[in-house]
């Protein structure tokens, strides 16, 4: 900016936010990264010396001796990735047809249904998960109903399984998949679909050759938006998975609140952050490439 008055106004407008996010957002991130390279001391403290084995421990080497390979944490990390990916697939299967259905309705119904789909998002996360605890626990709604109907005699174990965790995560993260997918389905040029079927393409062929490729950006956005919070989730596995379905988020929580190994917990957090950055950079590059092609 050339004019001096403009520069001053810009500084006034941006000064407070720069100061705040600089100290209270970038600062904490930096401190956490520093912590992840410190040596854990007894009773929850830290030694101020460089220590790389927090990361070694995640991969399976807890100390410098290479025989002690035990990838227990890597297994939890992989399980989290697997559950997060499964959740993305589940939500895609649930939300994509729903988005197709909504986009074919009249404008009035479309607005109403998009509103209804996002409304639960405004309800507290604890409340939404509490509802699923009520449904899935041994004396819960599902088991009481099934026993009441005489379909089963013993309650089935569904809470504290991966199934329960997946149901809970799908329920909590549904709008993050529905909204981007719906946005891309709605923008779809209907004449292309009609052209495909006029030219003799079966509905299935039209879907895989026309609809799906054109809505890929929405699917990608939804996948990233669902995958990131699924990976680091600890409330859902805590309430619906119990001690049996430990995810990376539970591991981090334990390091801070019971094990008191802050450097290791920080290293785990940094791992999640790295995965997130890689995903987002990859996503932005794909979107950029698509924009260049069009």
């Amino acid at each position, binding site marked *: *900016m050339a004019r001096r008055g*403009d520069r001053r*106004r*810009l500084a006034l*407008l*941006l000064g*407070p*936010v720069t100061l*705040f*996010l600089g100290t*209270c*957002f*970038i*600062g*904490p*991130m930096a*401190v*956490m990264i520093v*912590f992840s390279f410190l040596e854990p001391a007894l009773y929850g403290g830290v030694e101020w010396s460089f220590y790389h084995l927090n990361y070694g421990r995640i991969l399976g080497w807890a100390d410098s001796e290479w025989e002690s390979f035990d990838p227990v944490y890597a297994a939890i990390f992989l399980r989290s990735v697997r559950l997060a990916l499964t959740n993305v697939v589940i939500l895609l299967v*649930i*939300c994509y*047809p*729903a988005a*197709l*259905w*909504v986009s074919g309705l009249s404008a009035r119904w479309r607005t109403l249904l998009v*509103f209804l789909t996002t*409304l*639960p998002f*405004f*309800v*507290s996360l*604890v*409340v939404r998960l*509490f*509802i*699923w605890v*009520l*449904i899935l626990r041994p004396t*819960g*709604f599902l088991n009481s*109903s099934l026993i009441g109907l005489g379909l089963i005699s013993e309650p089935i174990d569904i809470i504290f399984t991966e199934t329960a965790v997946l149901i809970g995560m799908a329920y909590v993260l*549904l709008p993050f998949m529905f909204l981007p997918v719906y946005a891309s389905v709605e923008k779809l040029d209907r004449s292309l679909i009609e052209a495909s079927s006029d030219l003799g393409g079966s*509905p299935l062929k039209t879907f895989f050759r026309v609809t799906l490729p054109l809505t890929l950006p929405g699917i990608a956005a939804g996948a990233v938006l669902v995958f*990131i919070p699924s*990976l*680091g*989730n600890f*409330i859902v596995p805590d309430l619906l998975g119990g001690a049996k379905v430990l995810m990376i*988020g539970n591991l*981090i*929580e334990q390091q*801070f609140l019971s094990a008191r190994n*802050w450097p290791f917990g*920080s290293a785990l*957090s940094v791992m*999640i*952050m790295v995965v*997130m950055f890689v995903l*987002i950079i990859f996503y932005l590059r794909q979107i950029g490439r698509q924009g260049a092609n069009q």
Partner: protein
Amino acid sequence: MRRTWVKRVLAVHGALFLLFIYAPIVMVVVYSFNSNPINMMIWSGFTFDWYWTIFGYPTQLNEQTLYVDSTDRLLAAVQNSLIVATSTTTISTVLGTMTALALYRYRFRAQRFYQGLLYMPMVMPDIVLGIALLVFFVSFGMALGLISIIIGHCTFLISYVFVVVSARLAGMDDTLEQASADLGANEWVTFRRITLPQILPGVIGGALLAFIISMDDLVITYFISGVDSTTLPVFIYGMLRRGVKPEINAIATIMLMLSFTIATLGLYFRRRH
């Protein structure tokens, strides 16, 4: 023929989709009036007693499941949540709006950096931000309490307000501002009379969003709240971890109704403008 068949399958799926979202909610509301104190999922009659219980009034039912001090602690948690939410809403609305104005109005070298900086807290997983803030506060010797929660919430709520206000600014009519300046109004008068009324729906929308998210935030608050600074979601989470009690049904129903009301009001407000 085939296309109507596809449409029918999609409609059935859509109905199931809505059922998946709303059946659990309807269930919790209905069963919050269930008078069965032993198994809360077996219907044994209609009662308001769980609602009385959470507000600390003696009822026939709560003799069996009496919490001595939980009503006081619940009300303290509600109070904490309201203090945190109003403070963070105020701070993040002001800072978020200022940032949106700056990035909309001026072109400067660090613009892309600021855009990235503002999107980052929104995409950062909750647990990472919560841990980072905890480590930061503790290593700089800051006590965990309402202040730390307020700071923590502001780090990501500024971004939400920024995004909502920016969207509003993008659809704004610039010519009115130019006309105002041409007619000799100074910058401040132009802002108050022209710019602010135009972006106000966006600012209010952003503030409402910030308020709801702040009231609901569990993960970040969980890590940076002190012993006496429990907020409502953290309190309920603690209650849930200790075991499911029928009163939580009633609390959940009240919270559901409040969230639905605020969200509906927000939508109504946005559509009117």
